[in-house]
């Protein structure tokens, strides 16, 4: 065993000791993962249509559904935001349409996040229906 090997072994031993100390040290802090936002009771919101324009402020249930599908063909961030807001529409069918479109646009995680944040029977029904349409 030559001196070089010995030096390397010493360095390795020191590194191991430092690593063990760091691992076992009481001052070691756990890596804090960002906490998801707390669950909130779902609140209906019909004002999301106004984001598309003032002229869309008061639409019927079916018209809001059509608006969601119309927005589905627009590929921009603003449309995504509108669709996410449409998830809070008091009409479950409209919210389902928004969720469906978001999934089609590849934003299923936003739908899942919304469902998780507002758990309940409504969220369950939307989720189940979405699974049927896959």
């Amino acid at each position, binding site marked *: 065993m030559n001196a070089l090997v010995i030096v390397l072994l010493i360095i390795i031993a020191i590194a191991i000791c430092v690593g063990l100390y760091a691992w076992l040290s009481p001052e070691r802090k756990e890596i804090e993962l960002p906490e998801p936002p707390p669950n909130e009771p779902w609140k209906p919101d019909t004002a999301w249509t106004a984001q598309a324009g003032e002229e869309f402020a008061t639409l019927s*249930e*079916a018209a809001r*559904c059509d608006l969601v*599908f119309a927005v589905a063909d627009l590929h921009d961030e603003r449309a995504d935001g509108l669709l996410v807001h449409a998830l809070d529409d008091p*009409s*479950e*069918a409209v919210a*389902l*349409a928004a969720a*469906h479109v978001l999934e*089609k646009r590849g934003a299923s995680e936003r739908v899942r996040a919304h469902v998780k944040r507002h758990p309940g029977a409504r969220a369950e029904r939307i989720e189940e*229906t979405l*699974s*049927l*349409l*896959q």
Partner: protein
Amino acid sequence: MRTLTDVFAPGTPTLPEGLRTLVVSPERELEPGMTVRATFTFRNQGGAPATGVRVRFNLPEGLVYLVGSGKLDEEALDDEQGSSPLLARAGAQIGDVAPGEERRIDIAYSVAGAIENGSTVELQAAVAAFELAPVGSNVVRLVAHSRPALENALTNVAIETRHGASGGAAPGGEANVTVRVHNAGESSAHDVVVVAPIPEHTSYVPNSARVNGREFERELLASFDRVHAPIVAPSLPASATVTLQYRVRVDDPLADGTSIVARAQIASQETAAFAIDAASLTVRAQADFEDDRTSVTVEPEYDVTPGSHIVVRAVAFNAGTTTAESVSLTLEFPDHVMPVRGSFRIDGQPLRERKKESLTFDLGAIGAREGVEFVAEGAVLSPIADGTSLPVRAKLTWAPEGERNFECSAVVRSQPRFSARHNRIVRVGGSSVQPSDECEATILLSNDGSAPATDARLHLLLDPALDEVRVFDKTVRLQMDRDEVDLGKIDPYTSRRLTVRARVRTPYANRSDIRLGGSMHAREAGEVVLGEANWRVESHPAFSAETSQLQLVQDDVFRPNQLVEVHVRLRNEGTDIANNVRLRLYVSPEARLESVEGATRERSALLFGEVRPGGTVEAKLGIRLLRSLAKAYPVTIETVLTADAMLPVQLTRLTIVTTAEPNFSVGTLHSEPADVADAGDEVEFVLHVRNGGDGPARRVKISVDSLDELIYVPNSTTVNELPVRDIGAQSPLTSEQGIMLSDVDPGVEAAIAWREVVHNGLASGETLVRTARVSYDGERLDEIAAPELKVRCSPVFANAIAGLPFGLDGMLGPAFAGGQRALPDVNDRFVQLPPAMPVARGETSVTSVLSLGSSGNGHAGDDDEAHVVETVAVFDRDRLDRTLKFLSEARFGGLTSHMFALRAFYPDEAGSSNEAALEEVRDALRETLDRLFIKLRLPNYVIAPRDLENAGTRAGIVTLLNSLQPGQPALSSGATMLRGACDAGELRALAARLEDAPLATALPWAALARLMPSESDAEVNYRRMLITSLDDLANVDETAFIDALQRRPYPVLDAALNVVCAQISTRA
């Protein structure tokens, strides 16, 4: 130690005199305006230099620094802000002073303009250094000499009114007297005395004296006008002014131009008395008749009646301050007023009568605050219109150059007047008239008043007996408005004469009085009653057969026992009331009077009582025709009309046409049994006849024909259950004379019965018709038929009958007629079939649907394999579960559910075709149907055409159908595989049709239905039914297709889909 700043401060003692080097010129006395020069020198007596040396002079009261006069060692010191630094509090810095060095300071003062006489001025200088305390010079004291000067231009006296002196003073007004004393000297004046007597023609206004604005009498302790020479100012400083002011009232009255002069004398201890120039004010006075006390009035002002007098009263009061000379009054009367001679008075004294009266009157001179009253009268002339204003103008003139005009007026109250003596109605002609005669009266109208009567209307009080009323003004007929005639305007002192003609109404009651009254109404005069004219009527009643008669209410031919209504109408054609009107009736014996309406019946007479002229009375009579009526004798009613004061009148006889006849048309003939009789049975016939007419039948013959099919039963004929003798072996009914009934009254019934036997040789089904004939009164014949009677017989083949020891042909009776089955009920028209299997849609079971399925598997035969496109859809467990759940969720009713089945079972591969086209249609189908699936969750959502298809989807489907190639798909793995097959040619044909088919119709869905799996029977069945259903809708428009999608029920198809789902689930 005092500093240089502290020295010369007010109230501080002077510095000790350390240096006696201050020299002042002049040395002792000074006068206002004089220049005082001061020189101060000092030497440094010590051995060391004095540093920071400062020099300061004082500035005594009464002296002012002469600018630029400050000098140091003959060199001018710069002044600061108009003052020398030598006079500053810190003094003037002059630098260092070496030992033995001498410095000289010069300064000059000017004596102030006003300095009290005898006052002392002290001058002193001081010097200080850093090392030395202030050292004062010697003090130089100067005495001032000065005196006041009261007699100057500013010392004067003035008198003026509130409006100034130029406007003059008015008698009775006030004026201010102001005495100003100004001291123009250098010193004060002491005990200034002013003598200011109250000017002539004025009087002092108590407590009005003021000295410099403050009350003066308090200091005097007496009234100002009682003190001759008061001291107005104990001390009047130089350049000061004292003002004495008081008010005086100008005497009133006072002659115009009077001058009021104010004088004054002034003196003081230092000044001898002197008089100042007097001031004057001229009085302006004039006569004045402008106030309310000078007036011209008319009495009375209102309701002045024509013919009366009005009084013009003029009062001239001189409210001025001087006498008015040569005052005169001129009157001007209107046209309708005439001055009354001798009525003019001045202050109550009548003026002298003059033949040619002038309306200008001399009132003489009127002193200030004196007045004169003038009175004149005028007579108002008539006629004159009501409300006319009578203006009276007056002019008052006086010297010098005074004039005032007046105008007053009186309003006339003038009215028309219609006196009873000149306004009345006078009858023309005699007082007795007959109806239809003409009456005439004259109306006299005369306006005695002084004003015209406007809107005059003549109102006639017309008696109802008068007709055709006409009013004439001379020969002109006036238009009448109901009972009124518009007369318009009637001028004063004019007359109108009107003629009224009228015709006496006819008829009219005898000895009636006719009155024609009248009144006239005018706006101003009101109602004027004109009285009335009277006539008396001579009149009598009268009746005639033309207007008084009896009439049948219904013009008809009447039958016995019938009630005939007769209308009685009586008209009084006379001109007087008919009393005790009575109508005697003479009725034929075949009738009797049964009822009377509208009159009182007294046996055979009718009492109507009173009938007014022209009046009509009516009554309705009920005449009952008796049964004994004979056709040939009509019923007649004769009448005689009587009344008081009238001759009897025979009215036209009334004839009532009558008729009566028997009638046997209504009767019955029936048999027992009624409808069917077996051969050999006995049949009883009963004939009911009744005289349904209203007349008796003298002779009635009843007969029937003898029939071969029926055999009479002897002695069986009865009439009303009384046996009737047969004629031979026949019934008398069948004989030639029949059964004869006589004197059959109306309503009498007869029942004839007889029995017959059906011939047993008749064939079954033969019909028996029995008819009875009823003839009466020789000319009437009625037939009464009985219902048809069928003969019933039964066939029989055997002739061996149990119980008989022999055979027998020709047996009768129903007992032998067996074997035939009749309908269960005569009313049953159809045979009830066993109930069929219900085909209710909602109750269709799975098994029943399956039974409808095809036995084949849907695959094409081997011959067609070359054209077959096979399809396959592969399902793993998860997809299958999801698909089945999706289908269960997608039950929206109608055909919509099956569109989702097309999505669910859409093949993953089809034949050997291009997968891209298949994938494109799959995606489009899923996108379309997924959105529809979501929308259908909306409540009451109605499918729109855009929800079903668009041009892109259609193009994809066409492409797919054209690209599908026959063959088997390569995909062959999976948990569950659903296979299907379709004909490629059929798909091509559908694709060709799709090119022209409108969007949102059934054809593309029908094409896609061909791609459904068809492996099992259930699948084949469902596929076939779905294709059939969609093919049926292929030619309908989008509206009908959507209606089928959402509203039309498809229970069988739904059930078939259930079977497919169940089967697939089981297979998996």
